[in-house]
């Protein structure tokens, strides 16, 4: 009875979807091309990969449904996956936050400089990110040959006698990967932060000074950061996706597979099973790995969003 009453009291009926589309057709038509492409090239593949993760599929024959056994194998039988997971998490936990913080600190410092110097510094920080596979130059630095740059210097300084196999020794592998990844990943969030810092309304600082802000830290926490929340968010998302998605860097630097899987990450594990060049040809299993990775990224993004919401409070 009560329900009925409410309905009669509120005569407003939500117009049908069709009507709504007709009403806002201009906007819908504007977003349609993007949505189409997004659906075909992003949503659909994600869904398909999710479905394939319940099958055994070798790309040459039809997929066979095998239930959850891919996931069971992944967590219970595949010790290499556990190495990959461990490596990925180490990489993500170190490079993610560190490079995020570093990017912000650098951005904050550089923002104080004069425009010309700032422009120059921005270029320097952003260069690694735009220069594609420039990280390959680290191969020269860490080359295991005695003519590798680092080895040559160390030998020259008489610190070592025989060349160190930087990229073939498990204990150095992850460390090198972290350095290269840090160098690489500063760029994007750094640029976003610089942009964010520029948009902060200068008058707010004056107002805050009047209201009793005592030092730069308070200014940063209460004014600057809340003002650039969206940039912080963007930077964080990029950083997490980058950090969890480390793969190509590992392949190019440490080789594939890396010695004793020392630089194996979830992405390289995925490539191992599912890429067109792999002889394993286990697409279903690779899809299961991809799904796990997807869940991992989604989860950490949610956590980060929570954290960023707290900024300035």
């Amino acid at each position, binding site marked *: 009875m009560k329900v009925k009453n409410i309905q009669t009291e509120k005569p407003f009926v939500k117009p049908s979807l069709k009507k709504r589309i007709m009403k806002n057709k201009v906007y819908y038509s504007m977003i349609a091309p993007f949505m189409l492409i997004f659906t075909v090239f992003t949503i659909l593949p994600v869904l398909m990969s999710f479905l394939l993760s319940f099958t*055994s599929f*070798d*790309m*040459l*024959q039809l997929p066979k449904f095998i239930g959850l056994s891919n996931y069971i194998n992944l967590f219970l*039988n595949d010790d290499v996956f556990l190495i990959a997971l461990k490596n990925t998490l180490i990489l993500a936990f170190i490079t993610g936050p560190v490079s995020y913080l570093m990017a912000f600190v650098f951005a904050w410092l550089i923002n104080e400089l004069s425009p010309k110097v700032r422009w120059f510094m921005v270029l320097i920080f952003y260069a690694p990110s735009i220069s594609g596979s420039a990280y390959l130059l680290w191969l020269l630095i860490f*080359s*295991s*040959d*005695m003519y590798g740059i680092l080895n040559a210097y160390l*030998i020259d300084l008489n610190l070592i006698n025989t*060349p160190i*196999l930087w990229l*073939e*020794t*498990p*204990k150095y592998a992850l460390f090198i990967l972290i350095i290269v990844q840090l160098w690489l990943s500063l760029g994007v969030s750094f640029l976003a932060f610089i942009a964010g810092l520029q948009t902060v309304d200068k008058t707010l600082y004056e107002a805050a000074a009047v209201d009793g802000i005592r030092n730069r830290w308070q200014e940063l926490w209460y004014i600057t950061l809340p003002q650039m929340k969206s940039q912080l968010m963007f930077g964080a998302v990029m950083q997490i996706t980058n950090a969890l998605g480390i793969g190509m860097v590992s392949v190019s630097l440490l*080789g*594939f*597979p*890396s*010695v*004793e*899987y020392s630089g194996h990450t979830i992405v390289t594990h995925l490539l191992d099973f599912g890429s*067109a*060049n*792999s*002889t*394993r*040809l286990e697409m279903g299993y690779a899809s299961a790995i991809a799904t796990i990775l997807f869940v991992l990224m989604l989860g950490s993004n949610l956590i980060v969003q929570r954290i960023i919401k707290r900024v300035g409070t």
Partner: protein
Amino acid sequence: MKKRFVIIASILLILVLSIALLFGANKEMPVVSAYTGLDYSTITSGINDYETYLEKEEANFPEKLIIIDARNYSEIDNVLNIETVELQTFENEEGLYIPETVDVTWNFNVEESGYYNIKIRYVATEGRSSEISRGIKINGIYPFVEAENFVLSRIWEDEYNVADKRVTGSHDIKPKQIEKIIWNEETVADNVGYYSGKSYYFYFNEGLNEISFIQDREPVLISEITLFQDKADKSYSDVYQNYLDLGYKNISSDIFENGYYEVQGENSFEKSTAILSPTANWSSYKIVPYEKFIMRYNTIGGNIWRIAGDWISWEVEAPESGLYQITFKTSQNYKQNIVSSRILRINGEVPFEEARNVSFNYDSDWQNITLGNEDGAYWFYLEKGTNEISLQATIGIYNNVVKKIEYAISLLNQIYRQVVMIAGTNPDQYQDYMFNQRIPELSNYINNSIDFIETAKAEMQTINKKSSSLIATIDRVLYQLNKFSESEKNIQIGLNELDDNISALGTWVTSISEQPLAVDLLYIHGEDVKLPKATTNFFQKIWHELVMLFGSYGANTSLKSNVEVEGPTITVWIMSGRDQSQLLRQIIDEQFTLQNNINVELKLVTTSALLPATLSGNGPDVAIGVGQNIPVNWGIRNAVVDLTTFPDYEIFSQNFHESAVVPFAFRDSVYALPDTHDFLMTFVRTDIAEELDIKIPESWDEVIDLVPSLQRQYLDYYLPNTKGNLSTLMYAMIAQNGGSLYEEDGKRTLLLEENAMDAFIDFTTFFSDFGFEISANFANRFRSGEMPLGIFNYSLYNTLSVFAPEIKGQWDFAPLPGYDKDGVIHNQSTSTVTGTVILEQSDEKYASWQFLKWWLGEEAQTSYGRGMEAILGSAARYPTANLDAFENLPWSAKDFLILSKQRENTVGVPTVPGDYIIGRYIDNAFRATINDRTNPRDNLYEYATKIDRELERKREEFGLD
């Protein structure tokens, strides 16, 4: 006042002190032993060249003719004992057939001692169609360096004139190159152009002499060897005067209908190599004939006609006897600031001295070059009727430069090596190695090479005023050498740079001795003739380029077939380069399509495209050049055809060595057949081995014995190892020791068996205990001599032949070391192969099988291998898997023997489901041992169980028991 005085005094004091110090330091500079001019005798890698040889004996040139009947040889040396000499008759003339592995000696009497030329009457019998080459010894020794190698050319011709089969609007068909086997006479001459291509003189004493031909390459049939005096060259003015005296007349252009007689360059009469087939050129629309976007074979030569010694001849019809002018329409836009040189011959003879060096200057456009000098065009005497005009590539004006730089390189190499043996490759900057005392000839070496290089530089500058960019390399080397001679300290500082400089110099000299030239037309004419214009102006050029650019979007001429038949059509994918695919296209058109009534659509793709294409059903029928472990992995998933289902598989597979098929076989099925087959060989720097008196090790024990003495001199032995994959050498060692990777069908790994385990441990010990380098660029260090021995796939030959021209002839193949078991060496080597597969989704399986049989057969593989070499030079030696085709490739007899002997002793790595894991885990075990110094046995145990688990998992996936 006092203060000022003190200041002045102290300034003076400092000045005096510093001057004293400066001069004092100068006096302390190490004394470089006095330089006493060029001293060839100290140069051990002998500069005993032809020039010095000519001065050795009294200059007597007897006008006598001595004819030696080749059949009456006195001695043969047949060490390899494969084939022996025999009498053979060709075209009613009997001669002595000399296989490429036999040395032959003739004895004969000379009445008057003196210098003679040597002429050989021979037939280039069928061989591997590379040039015939021999060494020549007089009375048991090589008289001079150049005599170690002389060339008798083969003669090639086009099957037909391209123009005869030309159809308007459709592509030309390239004529096959056919070898002309005839009796031919050739004088032993400088083929490269060091001495303007002149015939060599050999000195014979009065009385009994002997002459020997030393084996090198290709068999030959010889009937006569003649000692005679070649006609000496006269200068043009003398020759012309002689013509006038004889009453020859300058021809007037009026006797020709349009003022000249022309021959198309591509319509050649004969040539020295099959490489020089007609070429299509679109660079200017003034080329005759020319059609946009249509393949017109309208020129000859170009970049492929760059090797000194290669010649092309044309036939011209002279309407009457008399003196003519000759014009070539040519293009030399291949090498900037370099003059391409040619030797001109008319009816086989160089008409006058100047014709030994006909220059074609660099120009971006086509040019009409009328042969002549500053005073005007030369007149050449042509007999009425058919005359033969030929051009031979020669180093020409660069001969001295090239010679000098080559000497310098051999000296610098010695300097480098001797220094490395004392100080290693990374000498300490501050240590005093006392190079000058320990290498007594050092300063001589340095000064001599400076001399050589400076002479070469001066000569370059006189040849070309604009040569500054060309001599940059030379300048760099000179600068460094001058620093070396200043102080020996600089040697240890600049050692690495010296190594780079030597290689740069090597590349430079190869590049400068290349003489590219393209010929479109050849004219003979009288004076003041108006020839069709060859050049285009700026706007014409722009327009032409624009048309070609935009037209190129529409017309794809590259891989389209020129022939079409009624029969079925198959699609073939080749995973290789552009040159390779174009050549394959050409061979298919020539040899396959018409003969088998099957059309072939050829596509060039990347390897990673095959899987997605097959998945979506757009895959090819046949794929060429797929990787070693793809066929079985796809085969057990029913994606490629099991070739044993074809009835004639058994017979056809006999064409390959067993080990090359092993990677493609699983259980009773074979999913591919090999196109290339590569395997490990030992590479040896013979010069260094000789110098250090190293015996090439045949067993691993000998290798281990050798290593300390190498390492004492900062040299190394290279053993290959691959990261993340099964090391081919380790597999070879396992096989040598009698072990294997898997139980039958790959059910379980047998790595833990004693034999395999021992081999693994031995391999690991090399690196962990004996200090072999794990990571090194072998090609680089082999070139510089730091690693005078090493093991690598034999196809490294290709890399070395382009990348390290300066060590050409100074290295050799040797068999792989092996395990010595009761005196028998087991030295199996590992095969690396690529294969050709037929895909299961093909609708034309039978036609595909026909194609596969043709492509992997002897004829196609030979044509392909030779063709690749024709286009890209010996850098593209094709490691064919077909045994008969391998025999047809131009390997030297010695290399061929060593390679085929090692091939008989190769093993293939079997492919089984899950095999990727074995290489990975063995490598992990290997690395763990090296990195953590742990027990190799424990590591292998640990990983073997992991391998078994993965193999089992994979077998479950396929439902194998």
